């Protein structure tokens, strides 16, 4: 979308220089107000990054073609609109001088078409309302894609308007716009996806780098905190909630009751069952979730707590044995 000098008249070029200069002047004022001495070196390096990153081609699945990064939207998400705009001016000037990508006289128009929309519209219309507060993967992806598409649509429209006002082409304005807009819609979508992929990567790895983004990523809870909460839940459930356990039969007992008329099977008279019942009577320290010969509430609570501790110990022991065996095998 870089405009060449031949596509613009001096009058239009001058007007666009004035428009871009006003935006640049305001941006400089804003960046100075931030009073961050680190800002300019960061802007310089980020400009070089955008320059290098735009030379990497990304395969568009299923098409065989490729696209590249949308610099304006990416920079505005990382540096903010004002610093991003100034950085883009540097990138566009170097592209113009070193690679003849865009003209020197058309620089004002190129800055407006490619930097102004991407940085300012991208930020104030999309990044700020969508991703600045409560940033999430979905919001970042949506803001990046919409930002790239909208800024490219505005940029492409401006190219058509500037060329028309310069009286360069005989092509009717509607036909020119009709050619430019759909092409840049597709380009915008691809650039938006690439920009979204990069910004999501930044969000996942270094969220503090996103400009004014209140990333409310929940920190992983510490082991100590987890254990304290789990212990509290276990004490409350086993010691207190167990008191409110239903006295009605459970599913199995209910089924047996429906068939035999009783929740207990009449099998205790047989020798094997009789023997095992006797053993259970001797070994059970808290029969029927209560102290022996005592139906007090305390017995139920203690039964809940003791049962839970024993289950926890068995599970932890089993896990330890399993992990230890695995480690030994790995060493061998």
């Amino acid at each position, binding site marked *: 979308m870089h405009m060449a000098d*031949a596509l613009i008249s001096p009058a239009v070029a001058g007007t666009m220089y004035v428009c871009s200069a006003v935006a640049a002047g305001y941006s400089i004022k804003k960046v100075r107000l931030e009073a961050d001495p680190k800002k300019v070196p960061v802007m310089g390096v980020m400009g070089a990054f955008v320059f290098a990153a735009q030379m990497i081609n990304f395969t568009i699945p299923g098409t065989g073609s490729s696209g590249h990064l949308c610099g304006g939207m990416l920079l505005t998400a990382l540096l903010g609109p004002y610093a991003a705009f100034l950085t883009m001016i540097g990138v566009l000037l170097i592209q113009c001088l070193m*690679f003849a990508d865009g003209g020197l006289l058309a620089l004002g128009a190129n800055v407006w078409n490619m930097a102004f929309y991407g940085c300012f519209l991208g930020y104030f219309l999309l990044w700020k309302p969508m991703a600045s507060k409560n940033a999430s993967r979905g919001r970042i992806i949506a803001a990046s894609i919409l930002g790239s598409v909208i800024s490219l649509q505005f940029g492409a429209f401006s190219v058509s308007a500037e060329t028309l006002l310069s009286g360069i082409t005989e092509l009717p304005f509607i036909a020119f716009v009709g050619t430019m807009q759909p092409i840049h819609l597709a380009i915008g979508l691809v650039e938006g996806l690439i920009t979204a992929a990069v910004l999501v990567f930044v969000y996942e790895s270094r969220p503090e780098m996103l400009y004014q983004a209140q990333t409310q990523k929940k920190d992983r809870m510490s082991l100590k905190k987890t254990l304290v909460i789990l212990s509290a839940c276990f004490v409350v459930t086993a010691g207190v909630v167990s008191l409110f356990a239903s006295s009605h039969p459970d599913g199995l007992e209910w089924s047996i009751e429906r068939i035999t008329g009783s929740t207990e099977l009449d099998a205790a008279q047989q020798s094997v069952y009789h023997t095992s019942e006797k053993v259970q009577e001797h070994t059970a320290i808290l029969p029927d979730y209560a102290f022996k010969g005592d139906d007090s509430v305390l017995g139920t609570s203690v039964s809940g707590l003791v049962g839970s501790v024993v289950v926890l110990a068995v599970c932890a022991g089993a896990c330890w044995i399993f992990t230890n065996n695995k480690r030994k095998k790995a060493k061998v």
Partner: protein
Amino acid sequence: MSKLSGAYYEIHHMEQLADRDQWVNHIHPLVKLVVTVFYIATVVSVNKYDLARVLILGVYPIAVFILGEISFTDSVRRVRLILPLVCIVGIFNPLFDRQVVAHIGNISITTGMISMVTLILKGVYTVFATYLLIAATTIEKICYAMRLVHLPGILVTQILLTYRYISVLLKEANTIMQAYSLRAPHQKGVHFKVWGSLIGQLLLRSIDRADNVYASMSLRGYNGEFHGAGQEKCKGSDYGYLLIWAAVLVILRYVI
């Protein structure tokens, strides 16, 4: 050669050209910048049907190419970037502007054909003019000229830093891409599954580098203002160069 390494060598080549010991390289950067902008503005201001005047204005690039001993073939490669868009815009002129103005044998020459050729010539001339500027002037000197016309220091410093680190990051990006292409042979471009992580890694490294740059600049006394070392004043020959080209261009544009 990959796009990245091509860009790296292009920058290196342009720096070598700008560092040559030629008379055109020694002209004051502000004078060269003013002459270039004035020439481009003169060329694009010519009427789209005034092919003869556009042809005459080719005298500036021809003269500087010859006198400055600058390779013409190198500059032709740069035209390839702007020519497609210029041609797409210009190619419709013969279709919509069909007023016949002359005949060459059986072929009717229309105003649309003339405006298309004029447009292409303007495109080529303006690219040549920018090339001649950068082939004879380093970016540092152009930035110095920008400071002389009171462009804000924050913008100029940022441009200088961007330029300085482009080579570094192009090399780094090239290394990443080489490593990627060795692991993904016969693949055009970067697979969409690694779009984020590949560029994201380069981005994180760049930001870490920016921190180091700032730390080293602070250690050298950076306080927000960039002070150029090679400050030079305009000499008589610089004023002469400016006046000669201003006169020539005004005559070619308005008198002849």
